[in-house]
């Protein structure tokens, strides 16, 4: 656990670097978190994934894993890996201010 100030807000992070309170999240924070993950600019395609993740999380209480993203977000597996290299589900969840997805697939 650690607390950091991002965009004028005090944000709490868990041991894996995911935000503890999804409610503290906003778009400015997302942009800052993306930079930390090596993504300089969030494009409209990135936002499509991030917004889909937040929507599923609000409905189900768990961030979607890669198969759900591929089937339902409108962004396919290949593009997901190019938008969020090195683990798209985990990385997109991090930027979306959500905990790590619990699903295995």
């Amino acid at each position, binding site marked *: 656990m650690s607390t950091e100030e991002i965009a004028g807000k005090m944000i709490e992070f868990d041991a894996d670097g995911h935000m503890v309170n999804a409610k503290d999240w906003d778009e400015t924070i997302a942009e800052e978190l993306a930079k930390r993950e090596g993504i300089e600019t969030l494009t409209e395609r990135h936002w499509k994934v991030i917004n889909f993740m937040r929507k599923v999380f609000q409905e189900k209480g768990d961030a979607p*894993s*890669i*198969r*759900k993203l*591929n089937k339902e977000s409108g962004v*396919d*597996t*290949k593009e997901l*890996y190019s938008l969020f*290299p*090195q*683990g*798209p*589900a*985990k990385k997109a969840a991090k930027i979306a201010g959500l905990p790590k997805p619990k*699903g*295995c*697939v």
Partner: protein
Amino acid sequence: MSLEKIEPIKKVSIIISKGSLDGIYPGLILANGARMEGIEATLFFTFFGLDAVIDKRMDKIKVATVGNPGMHIPTWIGGIPGISALASSMMKKEMDKIDIPPVREFIEMCSDAGAELYACKATVDMFHLKKEDFCKQIKEIITVGEFYEKSAGAQIIFT
């Protein structure tokens, strides 16, 4: 005492050697899971594991109901015609609920995620198979020597 830093896994090389549902899925879950964690993954299909990537067979993968004590049904019941198909369809329904895709979709997912898929030359020759018999995600048919070359720096997992 030296404080050795434990290095995270960077690359895995997974061998799938069995052709039953329960023989194929663990390897696919491991490969896809590796890619999800940013770990490089190579999949090597050998012996009956080839069924997972043979175009005509990959949609007909079944769970073994005979000689499989994990099924918890008597062997003679497991041998009744249609039981294996029934058990397989029930299992596939349960898997779909937890977002585990059918074999073909799973193979596509692994490949799209950047895993590399290969078939074993020795078995391909033994079964008189050709490159055209495989789904398009199979990159190459390779020898065991080439398998080791491609596995350089990887943890090898046999399933």
